[in-house]
């Protein structure tokens, strides 16, 4: 099994979004084909997943083809935000969800900003892959880690906003910047999703805390002085009632 599977085909992209929970389960273990057919609702869909190379046969079962699936957005930005990003970000405070939301403003130059995505953010995701590969012992639920970064200046009025409002502004500016070919490389708009039990969720939170701490030396003294704005958010819709006590 390869380390990373790049999802390029449009049909595979759609299948990933429509059946993400199934793919996440297959990343954990092989599952009998019949059970997958039941989950996705039709044998034709499973055959399509096989044809696209999203999953592979493992005897009578199906398995994931890599440890990590990587895909780039293939739909309109607003649709992407509406369906995959905002519900998770705004649902940060929902009952039963364990969430971590960190915003920071940095004073870095453009070269450094352009390197964040392939550098620190990729290392964060690599660390999360390690977390996702640790054995899960308890009930699992989807854990999403989102990173938005933008070198666009924010209004001075954004200073003093609460973290969620600030994160939403970061997201807006990152999305706008990603939609501009000449500025695209300066913005980050990425998310990493896997199934986590309580232990993985805690480990992932620690990884995220470390990531934010690593940027501390570059933190700007105020939004006005900042040249880069970054948000890291995690969302774990806990499968157990114990998730309530983990709200942060």
């Amino acid at each position, binding site marked *: 099994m390869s380390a990373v599977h790049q999802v390029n085909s449009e049909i595979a992209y759609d299948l990933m979004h429509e059946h993400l929970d199934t793919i996440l389960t297959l990343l954990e273990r092989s599952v009998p084909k019949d059970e997958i057919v039941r989950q996705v609702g039709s044998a034709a869909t499973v055959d399509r997943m096989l044809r696209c190379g999203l999953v592979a046969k493992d005897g009578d079962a199906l398995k994931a083809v890599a440890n990590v699936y990587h895909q780039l957005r293939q739909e309109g930005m607003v649709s992407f935000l509406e369906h995959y990003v*905002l519900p998770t970000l705004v649902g940060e405070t929902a009952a039963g969800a364990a969430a971590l939301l960190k915003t920071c403003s940095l004073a870095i130059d453009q070269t450094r900003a352009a390197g964040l995505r392939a550098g620190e953010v990729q290392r964060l995701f690599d660390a999360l892959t390690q977390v996702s590969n640790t054995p899960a012992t308890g009930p699992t639920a989807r854990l999403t880690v989102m990173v938005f970064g933008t070198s666009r200046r924010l209004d001075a009025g954004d200073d003093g906003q609460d973290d969620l409002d600030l994160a939403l502004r970061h997201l807006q500016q990152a999305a706008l910047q990603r939609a501009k070919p000449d500025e695209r490389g300066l913005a980050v708009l990425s998310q990493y999703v896997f199934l986590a039990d309580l232990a993985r969720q805690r480990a992932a939170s620690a990884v995220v805390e470390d990531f934010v701490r690593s940027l501390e030396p570059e933190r700007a003294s105020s939004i006005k002085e900042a040249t880069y704005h970054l948000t890291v958010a995690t969302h774990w819709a806990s499968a157990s009632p114990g998730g309530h006590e983990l709200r942060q």
Partner: protein
Amino acid sequence: MADSMQQTVMSACDHVGLVGSELRKMLAHEIPAKILLRRGRDVVLLSGATGAGKERIAQVAHEAARRTLGRKGELVEVSCANLGRGLFESELFGHRRGAYTGADHDHDGLLGRAQGGTLVLDEVQSLAAEDQARLLRFLGEREYRSVGASDTHVSDALVILASNRDLRGLVGEGKFRRDLLDRALAKISVPSLYERRRDIGELSQAFALEAARELGAEDFIGLTRRALADVETAVVRAREVSVRRLKEIIRDAVFALAADALPEAIESDMLLPILEAELAFQVADRDLEDQRELAAEYDLLIGRARLTEIVHEHKVSKRTLDRLCGAIKTVIDEMHDQPRSYRNVVERTNRLAKVALWLVSGAATQAEFRKFFGSLEAEMPTKSVAHQIYYEVFGDDAKGRTPAARRDPSDAEDEL
């Protein structure tokens, strides 16, 4: 009452096969407000660009009126542009045998056929001045006399005047009668296709699947998200108004691909040459449209996401949310009609806050609403306040047998 009318409109949309959630949502509000609650007595002006779907909407209106108002007559549609000069009177009102040369039998006319049903006069702007006068006279009195007859008939048809032109502009140019325009008390304006972004994708998918069914392609799943996003962008940027044109483009794409072998899905690169040729779409438009949409809709998206979260967290039902949105819309609509003084605005927003409180409380009765705030009298709103808010929320529903009374007779003391 309004809830069940909205459901009826949705069922009528299904019956007629009207696709497009944005348009359906609009009709679920407009048809009850402009037709059903008025019991179909007011003349309706249905305006919108060519191909925007006026014909289908008229069918939905007819079907909804049939189901809600118990009308049993048929739907009669005619294009005024196709009625030759001098034929309108005879076509609309009918004629008696021998009324004029060639009238060798009695003819009921459109109004006769539409008795108890719906009459749609499409392209009403094409009527000659004298025919506009005849139509005006009929719409005022609802009585007509067939050509060559001495007796008069009364029509109860729901009359829909449809036009793809700006009738106000035509009035200004002296080509359409102002009093005829004013006679249409209920006006429904159909947004053009490019103004209904969500509908573009839904319609495209429906048209593609329909064409594939005709080809017997069972495994075809439609357009991919990327392809759908491109169609949406192409239609919006080309400001394409017509659903018919979109249908033509998508069907062309399906049949052109099927000439070789229809793939299991239409991907964006397969569609690109067609979108380039038909709608001048370019790949660079993707980014431009993303920028435009983000600038226009980001705050709205956040609002929608927050609302969804609140609804989820407080277990607010869809019905309650619809009512709340209706109450907000009423307040906003009233703002346009009233002077926007501080006093007026505060009065209305205060009322809205009370309505919102009721809806969030999830109460079915006035007693339940009061108990939402606590168990002690001092914690609750007074009975008269609860009573007043109840009527502000439920409006006309509260005058008849209320849902609350049906659900919980023990609270009947709170009902009027």
